């Protein structure tokens, strides 16, 4: 393992050296991420090995990803960019790219090719949803439920519409306090075919329909806004089932040993990844590009899955996913992309939400507040 790593690192370094040439590189780099276990997995998988190779580089972690869009805009307007690399979700990356706050990248030039020579563009494939976005992980928003609260004589919930089935599965639900994902699930359970969901949702009638469907369970929903909420609510037994990121559920189930089960049906895929702020001075840009080249190579992305159950964004990384670093369990079956889990998945439509986010959000919030 160690040997492979070193080999990979050397390769990456050579490639990096080739592209960057003799350019001057800064020695300090501010990386913005989300904090918590996720950031730790990035430190373990990317930053530590990188610093081993470049002992002179100092990496400062800033846990501001939740405010990244607002802060980047202000930095840009002020002409004083203090961040070098920012971890954001894909929807934010698109927004940042639209605002001209993130730098456009050329996948084949800025990202390392797969070990078998497949170009980065092909290796990442469809996941390059924006010109500025460097995908890193595939995560999904899905449901977890309390196994000990499943009524006797009833099977555990295994399809999305069980969320609406208050008779079979009494108890509170937790849903995120925003329209995204919830509206899609509501329409799916209201009989809309999977590939028509966004067409329906684009019409005012469709939006009303989704809200009406959500209205059926409104009284039994606790709306969450922070990623840590649903795991806490599940651990308290405050809710029967709730939506959250699959990595959180993995941690609740496997690391914390809570009586919680995972329902993968109609999980909605989303992406997390890097953007490089627009307007970096050259020496810093060179350093960041060097880091990104290293941190998004096939092995590094696969390594991250040792610490957190999010799927690597490269096709070539999937076979390399190994065991959990502390628990020693195989991580592959816990990936949202694992075939058993991905029997029925739903693809998040970025373009749609970029257009309708403000509009539907206004309606959604007005509906919520009623």
């Amino acid at each position, binding site marked *: 393992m160690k040997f492979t790593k070193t080999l990979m690192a050397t390769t990456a370094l050579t490639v990096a050296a080739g592209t960057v040439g003799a350019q001057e590189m800064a020695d300090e780099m*501010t990386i913005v991420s*989300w*904090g*918590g*276990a*996720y*950031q730790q997995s990035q430190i373990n998988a990317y930053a530590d090995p990188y610093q081993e190779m470049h002992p002179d580089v100092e990496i*400062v*972690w*800033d*846990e*501001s990803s*939740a*405010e990244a869009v*607002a*802060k980047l805009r*202000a*930095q840009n*307007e*002020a*002409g*004083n960019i*203090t961040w070098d690399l920012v971890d954001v979700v894909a929807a934010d990356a698109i927004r940042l790219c639209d605002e001209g706050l993130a730098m456009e990248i050329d996948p084949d030039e800025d990202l390392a090719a797969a070990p078998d020579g497949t170009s980065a563009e092909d290796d990442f494939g469809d996941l390059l949803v924006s010109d500025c976005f460097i995908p890193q992980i595939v995560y999904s928003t899905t449901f977890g439920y309390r196994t000990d609260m499943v009524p006797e004589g009833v099977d555990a919930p295994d399809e999305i519409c069980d969320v609406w089935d208050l008779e079979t599965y009494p108890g509170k639900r937790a849903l995120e306090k925003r329209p995204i994902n919830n509206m899609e699930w509501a329409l799916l359970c209201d009989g809309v075919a999977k590939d028509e969901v966004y067409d329906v949702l684009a019409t005012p009638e469709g939006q009303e329909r989704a809200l009406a469907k959500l209205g059926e369970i409104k009284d039994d929903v606790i709306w969450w806004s*922070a*990623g*840590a909420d649903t*795991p*806490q609510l599940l*651990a*308290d037994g405050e809710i029967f089932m709730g939506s959250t990121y699959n990595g959180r559920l993995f941690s609740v189930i496997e690391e*914390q040993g809570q009586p919680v089960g995972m329902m993968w049906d109609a999980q909605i895929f989303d992406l997390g990844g890097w953007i490089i702020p627009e307007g970096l001075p050259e020496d810093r840009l060179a350093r960041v590009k060097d880091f990104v080249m290293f941190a998004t190579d096939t092995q590094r992305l696969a390594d991250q899955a040792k610490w957190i159950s999010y799927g690597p964004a490269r096709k070539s990384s999937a076979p390399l996913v190994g065991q959990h670093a502390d628990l020693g369990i195989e991580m592959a079956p816990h990936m949202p992309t694992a075939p058993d889990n991905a029997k029925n998945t739903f693809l998040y439509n970025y373009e749609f939400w970029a257009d309708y986010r403000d509009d539907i959000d206004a309606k959604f919030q007005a509906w919520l507040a009623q």
Partner: protein
Amino acid sequence: MVALTPISRKPVRFYVPTVALAGAFAGLLVGTANGSGLLGAVIGAVLLAVLAYVVTHFIDNEKPVRWAFVILFGIAGAALAGVSGAIIGLAFGWFFGWFTYWLYEGRYRARLAPYLTPGQVLWHFAFRVLVGAILIFLITPILVVMPLSFNAENFFTFTPEMLRFDPEGYSLKHYRDFFSSDDWQQALRNSLLIAPVATLLAVSFGTLAAIGLSSEHVPFRRAIMAILISPMIVPLIISAAGMYFFYSRIGLQGTYLGVVLAHAALGIPFVIITVTATLVGFDRSLTRAAASMGANPVTTFFRVQMPLILPGVISGGLFAFITSFDEVVVVLFVGSAGQKTLPWQMFTGLREQISPTILAVATILVAVSICLLTVVELLRRRSERLRGMSPG
């Protein structure tokens, strides 16, 4: 405190029914928990009436009786509901022992004026119970936080093990986390660096301005006052975004100085308000007297004015300190990773991964502040004693 009223033992018809009433209430609680509230109330009333009568009529020695109460109730509680029941039982026992003698000996009357009617006495104590309840409301969250910080799991939940007082349910790991984590230590250092400097800035500028404002000839006084108080009025999120934007343009964003300035601005209204309020009661002829005796303005300020308005300055400073020490929205924007303060670290902790380390930190802070406040109070009493004043 000297007794105001001579006390005497009270008649049976007064204290036995009262104790029985309290017993009925306690019995109701225990009874409902075990099936029948009514039965519990009756048993409680009869039991305590009998006990009160017996101990006051047949046993002269108070101390052993009260210990007997504690032990008796403790055993009864343990029999009903195990360890937690025993603890509640001990508390009940202590209370009823004390309550019986308090009524029987008429001690409750000792500190009250002799002319009060029974109704007024009742009101006096009812009022105290009410205020006690409000004070408990004030510290409840702290009472909840403390045990949870010893939780063995990574959630804010009272686990069944904790409720059984099973040692397995408790652990010190969150405290270890706090002391061993660089993030937390760095955040603590930042908080301890930023808050005092911001406070100092707010207090020194604020006190000067308050003195200026309290002079009667300031033009545009109201407008100036409104401006100085505005940091308290503007919704924090607006201040945060505005400052972030402005500070990044002048290169203050993400520096200690920037955070300190922002926090000082937020703390200023508190200093202004408290100090001007103290100055309203300040007799200006004192400064004139000092000046007429040859003191220069600086001496006058430090030797005459300052000592008199010091309490206002201190309480303003306290508010300013807490504002900075507990502020999360503005620092989240104006600071960067290097200036991460404790509240920021807690905020990420709450949002990204619930971890009772936050509760451990809170407990430590509470413990430290209890110590500080106690020390201050003890010092105050000592200086009072030294000055030969009676406390109060």
